[in-house]
Every structure is written in C-alpha cells, then in structure tokens.
C-alpha cells in the first residue's frame, strides 16, 4: 500500500476528469465540421455547459425516492472509479487487485443497474423507455466484449488483471499471436463504439429522446453530474479499450504514460466523430445485426486462437 500508487491514482483521476469535457467539446466541433455546420464556439463549450448547470436551481419529480436523488452522484463515482483503476500510471501496484477485467465489466453493469432504477424512479415515461433501451444495448454488446476480452485473457495465459495483460501485450510475445489479437481488438473496438452511445446506434445529444431519456427529469447540479457521468462513461470505456489493446509507447515515467494515454484518447475521438458525423441513426433492431457481426469477428479470433494453440 505504498503512497506513490495512491498519488498516481489521484492524479490520474483528476486529470482525466478535467480533460474529458474537453474531449467532448472536440467531438462536437468535429461532427459539426463534418456536417459542414458551425457547431459550438470552441472546444471548451462542454465546460461552460456543465458549469452553467451547476449554478441552476433544481426541480424534482414528487415520486422520486433517494435512489433518484443519489443516482447522479453514484454514477459519476462509479465512472471515476473505473478511470482510477485503469493501469495508466500505476500498473501492478497496490491497485492491481482492483483492476480486474471482470470487475470493470461488472462496474459498467452496476452503472447500468443504477441508471435503470433511476430512470424508472423518475416516473417519466421517456426515462423508463431509456432505461430499458440501455439494458437492450448492453445485451447486444456484452457477448462481444466478453468473448474478445476472454481471447486476450487466453493469450496472456489466463490472468484477468489488466496490469498483467498490459505487460504481456506490450512484450514481444504478442507477435506470434498477432492475428488473434487483431481480430479480437477489432471486435472489442466495435463493441466499445456501440457502448459509447454514438450516432449509428444512439444519439447522445438528443437528451430528450430515448437513449439519454434519464436526464429528462434532472435539473441543476444533478443534471450536470448525470451529464458528466455519461461523458466520463464514454472516456472510461474507450480507456478500457486502450489499456488492453493499445498499451504501446510503454514508458516507466507515469506522467508521460498519462499524456500518451490522453493523446490516444483524442485520436480515438477523432475517428469516432468521423464515423458519427457521416452515419444516420439505426433502429435498435438493426443494432442486433451489427452486434452479431462483431460477435462473429470475436468468434473467429477464438477459432484462430484454438488452431494456433493446437499447431
């Protein structure tokens, strides 16, 4: 339990939390530019939105219990925890036990759980449907994430701690299992994209519409926190992808690895907003077809792994 890991953890969380609205601002400008419209004034627009919301007064539905009132705080914290445990600055330190693959996947499930309960608790019909859609999307995405991640675990010899995986992936041993790794990486990437709630599968901006329906009943600081939590969620899921599949320029100076992590985040956001800019929204049924495509990719990687191992 050395102090250094705790400091790195705190720095990592604070920096990423502060940077994430910036990434969201970049994304909104990118999409506006691809759709040849002006978009927000500059990349700091999301900061201003969130700060404005903190200052506003609140309204609450009469039927809201403590679940509804505390949900934004809980969601924000869970996403902060996920970001904290990612092995960016501290790999295999005291927090190795907290950065387990299944633990993170089930933390996302905890996030969904609270999201679902709060959405129905608000009494708002749109929020209810939003909660139910959130679970449905997870149903399509989960098998791909698990299968892809499991194949990576198989490659690293069965250890599910992200630190171990990162060490193995960044070592040369990855080269002889490269095709398996690439297929599972692509599948995982696709699942991450769906999970972040971008355009082809869901429209984050259309708060009043379905996917972010939960926000309908929130106002003031709770709306700010909820919005922040959803932004953090996108960063967290992408962070998970990066820490498993793109660990390169491995440097033992934590600060530099944090900077490189942020750069990789920006690159991902750049491509994500490109895809989001040009695509139109699919119905939820079509997500099923796209998700099964990703699942077959992950399945191919499993077959390659078995053949590779047998040979």
């Amino acid at each position, binding site marked *: 339990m050395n102090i250094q890991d705790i400091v790195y953890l705190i720095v990592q969380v604070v920096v990423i939390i502060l940077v994430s609205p910036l990434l969201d601002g970049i994304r909104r400008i990118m999409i506006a530019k691809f759709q040849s419209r002006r978009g927000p004034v500059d990349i700091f627009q999301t900061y201003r939105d969130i700060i404005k919301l903190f200052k506003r007064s609140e309204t609450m539905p009469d039927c809201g219990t403590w679940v509804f009132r505390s949900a934004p705080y809980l969601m924000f914290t869970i996403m902060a925890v996920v970001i904290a445990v990612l092995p960016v600055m501290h790999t295999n330190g005291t927090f190795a036990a907290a950065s387990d693959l*299944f633990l993170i996947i089930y933390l996302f499930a905890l996030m969904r759980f609270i999201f679902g309960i709060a959405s129905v608790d608000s009494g708002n019909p749109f929020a209810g449907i939003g909660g139910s859609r959130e679970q449905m999307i997870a149903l399509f995405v989960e098998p791909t994430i698990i299968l892809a991640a499991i194949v990576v675990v198989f490659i690293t010899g069965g250890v599910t701690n992200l630190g171990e995986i990162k060490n193995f992936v960044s070592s040369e041993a990855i080269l002889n299992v490269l095709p398996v790794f690439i297929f599972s990486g692509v599948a995982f990437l696709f699942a991450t994209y769906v999970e972040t709630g971008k355009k082809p599968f869901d429209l984050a901006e259309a708060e009043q519409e379905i996917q972010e329906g939960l926000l309908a009943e929130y106002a003031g600081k709770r709306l700010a926190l909820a919005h922040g939590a959803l932004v953090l969620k996108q960063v967290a899921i992408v962070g998970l992808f990066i820490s498993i599949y793109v660990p390169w320029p491995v440097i033992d100076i934590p600060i530099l690895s944090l900077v490189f992590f942020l750069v990789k985040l920006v690159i991902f956001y750049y491509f994500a907003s490109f895809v989001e800019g040009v695509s139109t929204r699919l119905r939820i049924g079509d997500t099923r077809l796209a998700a099964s495509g990703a699942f077959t990719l992950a399945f191919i990687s499993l077959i390659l792994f078995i053949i590779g191992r047998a040979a």
Partner: protein
Amino acid sequence: MAEVYLLFLAGAAASLLLYKFQKAAAYIGFGIPAAACAFGIWYFFSGLTGGSELLVSFPIMEAKFVLDPLSSFFSFVICLIGLAASIYGIHYAEEYSGKVSIGAMGFFFNLFIVSMLMVVTAAHVFWFMVFWEFMTLTSFFLIHFNDSEKTAKATVLYMVIAHIGGAAILTGMLLMSTGAGSFYFSDFKGINLSATMATVIFFLFFFGFGSKAGIFPVHVWLPEAHPAAPSHVSALMSAVMIKTAIYGIIRTCLWLPLSEWWGIMIIVFGALSALLGVLYALTQHDTKALLAYHSVENIGIILLGCGVGFYGMASGNGILAAAGFIGGLYHVINHATFKGLLFLGAGSVIFRTHNQDMNKLGGLARKMPYTAFAFLIGAMAISALPPLNGFVSEWFTYQSLIQAALGSGAMGTFIFTGAIVALAVTGVLAVMCFVKVYSVIFTGTPRDEKIWEKSKESPFLMVAGMFILVGACILLGLGAPYAAGKIMNVSLSITGMGFETARGINVVSSTGSIVSPVLISIVFVSMLVVPFLFTAIFRDSTSTVRITKPYVCGTKYSSRMQITASPFTGFLRQVMNWLFRNEVHFEETNGYFGRVKYSSHAKDIWWSIFYTPVMKGLQFLSDRLSVLQNGRMQLYASYVLVTLAFFIIIAIFG
C-alpha cells in the same frame, strides 16, 4: 449434531401442542427454530473443519449420520437461511392467523428444516431416501397453506416430479449398494463398476437430483410450486431445498469413476438452465414466479462451477477441480442468501399489498423504505454487482472456466468459452430483470392508489429477518477472502487438492488473477468525494428544490403513463418470440374508445415438448384399456379362461 435436530423436533412438538393458540403458536413455533438455527450456525461453522458422527439405532436398519466438511457446509447454509426465515415467519404468520392454524404451519416448518438438515448428513441409503422424500412431503403440506385451485395443480406436478426423481435416486443408490454389498455410503467409494453401469448410475443421479434442483429439462415444477407457497417457505425452498439436490449430485458423483464428458454434460446443462431460466424470468409479471425462474438460472451457474470441478477430477487436475468447486460452493451460499432475501422481500410486499402481480404495484419505496432497501441489496447481489457476494462467486466461476478452457482440447475450449459467454449474457439479462422488478415495485408513481394507501412498513421481525440476510450478503461480499478460505477447505475435503485462495484483502484464483472487493469499495468511497467536490466548487444557487409532477411534454401526468413490467422487456420478447411462443389474449370491448384487455403469457417450451405429450399418452392408453372393464360378467369370466389357456401353453411348450 443431535442437539440441533432435537431442538427442531422440540419446536415441532411445541407448535403442535399450541394448536389452538394462534399467537403463541406463531412465537413458539417459529421462535424455537430460530434459536435452533442460531445454535446450528455456530455448531456447523465449527464443523467446517472437523467432523462428527451420530449413530441412531433403529431396529429395522442402523441409522448413521456423518458430518464431514461438505455436509457441515450445507447444514451451515440451511441454518443461516432457516434463522432468517423463522424470525421473518414469526410476524409473517399473522397473515394466516384467520385462515389456517399456525401451530400446524410451525409443526411442518420445523420438520421441513430438520429433514433438510438430516438429508445432508445421512450416510445410509434407506435413511437418506426417508428424509429426502420427507422433505418433499413437508414442503407439500406447507405449500397447501396457501389454498387455491392453482396450488392444487402445482403441488400435484411438484410431488410427481419429486417422486420420480426420488425413485431414480433410489435405484441409483441401490445399484451402488448391491455393488458395494452394504447400505452405508462410506463403502460406496471405488467399487468396480462397468463403464456402462457407471454411466447409467450417473444419469440416474443427475436427473434424479436434477428434478429436485430444477435443472432445465426437469425444472417445470419450480415456477409453479414456489410462488404458491407462503413466502418464508418459498424462501426456504428456493434458497436451500434445491441446494440439497446440489449436495446430492456432489456427494453421489464422488463415488462414481468420473469420466470427462460427464463434467462437460453438466456444464452444458448448467449453461442451458442459466440462459433459459433468466429468459423465462424476464417474461413473468408475477414476482415470485420471476424469482423462481431465477432459482433455475442460479442453479445453472452453480452447475457450471461444479461441472468444472467434476471435469477437473475426471482429468486428474486437482487444482482445476478445487477451482471449480470453490466457485460452485461459494455460489451455493451466495444464492441461498440473496434468493432468500428476495423472497422474504417479495413476501413482505405481498404481506402488505396482498397482490403478487407487479403491474399493480409501484412507488412502495416511500411506504416501505426498509423492505425497499433490503430488496435493492438482494437485487444488486443477484445481478453480481461488484461489492456484494454475487460478484465474488461468479468471478470464481469465471476463473475456473478460463482455467478449464486453457487446459482442455479444442472441443473443451469451445464449450467452456461458450459457458463463459452464456454466464456473461445471463449476467446482463439478470441486471435487466432486476432493474425491472425493483423499479416497477418500489419506485415511480403507484399504479393502484388503493393498494398504495393501505401499504405501510412490515412488522419489525420481518424486517429483522431480511436484514440478517442483507448483512450476510454484504459480509460474504466484503469478507470474501475469509469466506473463500473456509470454503477452500471444504472443497479440499472433496478433491484432495487445493490452492491458496486468500492473500490479505485480495481473493486469488487458481490462475493467479486477484480481485478484492474491499479495495474496490475503498476506492469507491474515496472517489465519492469528487462529485461533492465539484458541486461545492461551482454551486451558488441556494434556492430550494421545486417538487413537480414528472414532465410529460405539458400534458397532465397520470400514473398509467409510466412504464410497467411487460413493456420494460417488450422488445426482448419480440426478438425471442421463437422461444417464448407468447399467447396473446386480446379482447376488444365496446367500440374504438373502449377499454381493451390485453394479456400475454409466455409458455415454457419444455411443456409442449415433453410434459403434455406424456400426459396425453397416459390418458389415451387408459381410455383404450377401460374397454376391458365394461361391466359384462361373461367377458370377465372369459378373461380367466384365456389366461389359463395362455399359461398352460407356456407350461407345456415354454
């Protein structure tokens, strides 16, 4: 060991004596078992490492009860849930004070627990079967305290399947005992059986015990019988009775010469039960039926763990076997706690609202805060959300499946990975299902004003019963290293090999990966400061919070606008209709604006594949045969002559 049983028998006798006094019978009839369970918990907890033997001499056959780590683990689980259920039962019995005699309910309740305790320690074929069927008999009577037309149909199905299962187990055990030459379980280890005989015996045991555990093909009685029982009884049945079947499978398969494809078969059935259990649970809108289907799902998860255990033992890999069993056994105690908690929670909702249909409830959290909180903890535990116990046992199961996949051939890897994916999908569906259950019952606006007005918090002892299990869930979650250590020496006693599974606050799996619920909780609590920090920095509006009706685009809000149970999973039913075969009843009342009655009910496909054809066949056969007895005496007399002729021909020429 004998003192625990005697306490329960005393409780049974006492509650029978107080047949006339309802109030006293409730306190005594359920008080004594509570005390007995408390004593049992202490006794069996110390028994986890040691072992003791009890010989009861009956003239017909010497009864022998052996307490080895495996039996004391299951007895510990039974006593833990028994404690909560009996404390809960003291006040819950008030609901039945008018209709039925509480003394009788106490009598059967005590006998039910003691028969389960004796089943897990019996070491003699005859006495095992006696207590096995006695457990079914007492639960049959307990179910009938909720007397309705549906109960009668459900209990017949329950008894018949349990009896056929019992017969299969009896045949299997007798095949073993004739091989071993004695009725004592201790002599059954390592008798020489031919391969086919071993497989036959395995199938007899697996489907015999499976019928009681609710494994997929023979689970049909479970969603019928559990909802019909009084809640504290269905809590016991769902939490512990089906675990005695898991104990049976483990105990009996230890005797047989295991072969690898058995382990794989158990895993396939486990995955099937998990997936289909949760899928059918999603379509239910009766709370207890939904929870019953979840028992099928969790039994599937337990079987995944035990399947890996058997696979490990068959392939001689002790570490893998220990990993599998620790996953399976840990989930046994976890499932017992949170399923018991959920059933008790549902029971206290029914206690106040007298209604099991979710679509009529809503917003009860404000009226019943403690029950709501307990139910929430139970829901989070069953969906395996991190800090709680559900996550730890599923994590162990994942680790054992991964190790098994790495260790086995191509076919094995496919099946084990398939099991991992099935477990993950089950996790997602469980989250969806329990979001639906919790939020539709406890949150949002009440859908039926009358029910909402009448409901208030359940009496103290019921809440106390629930919070015992809430404490257990949290303790088993955060105290995972200690618990895993204890369970490891139970699985050590089974497989003979084990691995170091607890290091400080971390839990270690066989493949070396570590996780620590305590650490994640610490990080969670410390991160909780961050949102408050941000609100403190930027907050400056001090105006009070305005309470309004939920916003529905300006129209007047009515509680019917709110999402209810069925539409929450509506989309999934459309996608999976090939499985659910929804029967949609749609009645158009008067004209366009009239009220429309719509109800859809998912039919378990297994009914139409197996059960209805069997029943129709029996009916057809007996109708054909009834022609034999058509009342004409001359025909009867000719039967005698025909049989005489037939037998004489056999005698002369046979």
